[in-house]
C-alpha cells in the first residue's frame, strides 16, 4: 500500500529456428529490440543449391546455446527479468523447428518462465511493430520463400488469410527462375539485382490475376519464363538475362501490388504491412511505395531489410502480443510444420 504501481517493462526472449537461421532476441514491450542475434547457415547450404533439412537441423544444435547466450548478454537481462519465452512453433522444417522448441522449453522449465508458441508468419507480420505501432485493422502482404499471402489483422494477434498462393510461393518462383538463368543460390536477390539493369517491358510474360479472388498463382509465370528461354535457344536467339529478370519481376510485382491495393480499399485498413523475406526485394518495395503515395488514408510500413529475413526479434514481437492475449504453451509443445495462423 502506498507504493507506486509502476508498470514494469515487458521483456520477451524470442527464439527462431524454422529454416536455416538460428536466432534469438530480447524484445522490450513488444516494440524495442534489446538484442537480435542471427547465426545464418546460408554458406553451408550454398553448395547443395538449397536448404538441406538434415544439415539445417545439425547446425541449429551447434548454434542454439551460443545464440541464446549472446542475445541475453547483449540485452543485459537475466532470467528473472524475462516475462516470457516466445518460440517459433511452425510452420517450417520440422527437424529445424524442434531444436528451437525444445531449447525454449528447457529454458522455460529451468527458470519457470511462461512459454508462448508463435506462428512464423505472425512473426514476419509483427516485425513491423518494431518500426511503428500497429493501427488496426491492418493488412499484411506476406511474401517469402514458402508464402505469398494477404492477411487481415483485425485486432492484436487476430489473423485472417484473405488470399494465398494456389501453387508456388513468389519466393519459390524466384528461386526456380534464378536456377533457369544459372544464377547462384539463393536466387531472389540476384534476380532483383539483375532486374534493376534490364527492361521490364522487353519480354511479354503473363500475369495471373485470378479475378474476384485475392489468391495468387505463380507457376504459370515460372513456366512461361522457362519456355521463353527454351524457345529462344532453339531459334538460336539470345535473351538478355537482365531483361528476362526485369520482365519476370515486373509480372510478380504487378500482381502483388494491384491485389494489395484492392484489398486495402475493400477492407478500409489503417495500415499495410509488408512482411517476409521477399520484402527485401528492392523492386517490390519501390512499386508498393509508389502505389501508396496516392492512397493517403492508409499508411504503408516496410521494415528494414534485416527485419524482413528470418530473425527472432519478430518472434519476440509477435510473442509479446500473444502473451498479452493470454496465450500460454505447455511442455508438450511440438514443432508443427502445418501450423495454421488463424487458430493461434
Amino acid at each position, binding site marked *: 500500500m502506498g507504493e507506486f504501481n509502476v508498470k514494469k517493462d515487458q521483456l520477451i526472449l524470442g527464439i527462431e529456428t524454422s529454416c536455416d537461421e538460428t536466432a534469438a532476441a530480447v524484445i522490450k514491450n513488444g516494440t524495442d529490440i534489446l538484442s537480435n542475434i542471427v547465426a545464418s547457415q546460408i554458406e553451408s547450404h550454398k*553448395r*547443395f543449391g538449397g536448404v*538441406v533439412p*538434415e*544439415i539445417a*537441423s*545439425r547446425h541449429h*544444435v*551447434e548454434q*542454439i*546455446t*551460443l545464440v*541464446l*547466450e549472446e542475445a541475453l548478454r547483449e540485452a543485459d537481462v537475466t*532470467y528473472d527479468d524475462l516475462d516470457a519465452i516466445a518460440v517459433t512453433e511452425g510452420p517450417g522444417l520440422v*527437424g529445424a523447428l*524442434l*531444436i528451437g*522448441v*525444445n*531449447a525454449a*522449453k*528447457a*529454458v522455460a*522449465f*529451468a*527458470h*519457470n518462465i511462461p512459454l508462448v508458441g508463435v506462428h512464423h508468419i505472425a512473426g514476419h507480420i509483427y516485425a513491423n511493430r518494431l518500426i511503428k505501432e500497429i493501427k488496426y485493422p491492418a493488412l499484411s502482404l506476406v511474401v517469402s520463400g514458402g508464402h505469398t499471402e494477404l492477411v487481415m489483422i483485425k485486432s492484436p494477434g487476430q489473423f485472417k488469410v484473405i488470399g494465398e498462393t494456389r501453387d508456388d510461393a513468389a519466393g519459390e518462383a524466384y528461386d526456380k527462375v534464378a536456377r533457369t538463368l544459372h544464377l547462384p543460390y539463393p536466387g531472389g536477390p540476384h534476380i532483383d539485382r539483375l532486374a534493376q539493369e534490364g527492361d521490364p517491358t522487353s519480354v511479354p510474360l503473363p500475369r495471373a490475376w485470378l479475378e474476384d479472388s485475392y489468391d495468387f498463382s505463380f507457376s504459370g509465370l515460372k513456366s512461361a519464363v522457362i519456355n521463353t528461354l527454351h524457345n529462344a535457344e532453339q531459334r538460336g536467339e539470345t535473351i538478355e538475362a537482365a531483361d528476362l529478370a526485369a520482365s519476370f519481376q515486373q509480372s510478380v510485382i504487378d500482381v502483388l501490388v494491384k491485389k494489395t491495393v484492392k484489398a486495402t480499399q475493400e477492407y478500409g485498413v489503417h495500415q499495410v504491412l509488408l512482411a517476409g523475406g521477399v520484402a527485401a526485394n528492392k523492386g517490390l518495395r519501390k512499386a508498393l511505395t509508389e502505389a501508396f503515395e496516392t492512397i493517403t488514408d492508409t499508411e504503408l510500413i516496410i521494415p528494414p531489410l534485416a527485419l524482413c529475413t528470418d530473425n527472432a526479434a519478430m518472434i519476440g514481437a509477435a510473442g509479446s502480443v500473444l502473451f498479452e492475449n493470454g496465450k500460454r504453451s*505447455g*511442455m*508438450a*509443445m*511440438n*514443432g508443427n510444420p502445418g501450423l495454421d495462423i488463424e487458430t493461434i
Partner: protein
Amino acid sequence: MKVLAIDTSNFTLGIALTDGDQVVGEYVTNLKKNHSLRVMPAIESLLRDCDTKPAELEKIVVAKGPGSYTGVRIGVTIAKTLAWTLNIPLVGISSLEALAANGRYFNGMISPLFDARRGQIYTGLYQFTESGLESRSEDKNMLAVEWAQKLKELNVPVLFVGQDIAIHVDTLKDVLGERAYFIPAQAYNPRPAELAFLGRDKKQEDVHMFVPNYVRMAEAEVKWLEQQKK
C-alpha cells in the same frame, strides 16, 4: 550430487534422477511415439514426483548417439540447453555404451546394437572390468554380417544387447554360432540410471560445442563429397 540423465536416441525414452549412489527415480517407455512432445513433460513429472527443483540439479548426462538423428538431437538439445541455462556440467555418453551396461554380469565381450536399416547396424564393443565399463572398439556403422565376421576372429563369447537383435539374430548366429549370446527381452532397453552413473565421473563437455555423435554423415553431404571427387 543430483544428476539428471536423458536418453531419447532411439525408441526408448529414458529419464533418470540419481543422487550420489542412489537412483531416486526413473521414467522409461519403449514406444514408437514422438519424443519431442514427451521428453520435457517426462522430465517435469519425474522431478516433481522426486520433489526436486531444476535449480537443484548438479549435472546433466545425455545419450549422445548413435541412433535416430532426430531423436538424438532432441535429447542433446534439451541436455545442453539445461546445462547451459542452469550453469552446471554436461556429460555426453555413447548411446551404445549406455545399452552395453545391461550386460554387466556377462563374462565376455558386449556388443550393443541398434538397427541402421539395409542390413546395417550401429554397434561397438564393450567389456566390464574392475574399473568399470570399457570400450574395446569404437562405435561404428557397418553391415551386421561384417561385424559378426570381425567378432569371430576374437574367438570370445559375445553378448548382443538391444531390442534390434531380433532383426539380426539369424545373421549373428550363422557366423558366430555358440559364441553368440543374446540378452533377454526384459533387458532390451537402455536404462537411464545406468546412463547417469556412467556419466557421474566422466569429463565434462564444452556445452556450447557439444553435438550428437551421428556416426554417419548426412546423406546430402555424402553425395556432395562424391560429386567433388568426379
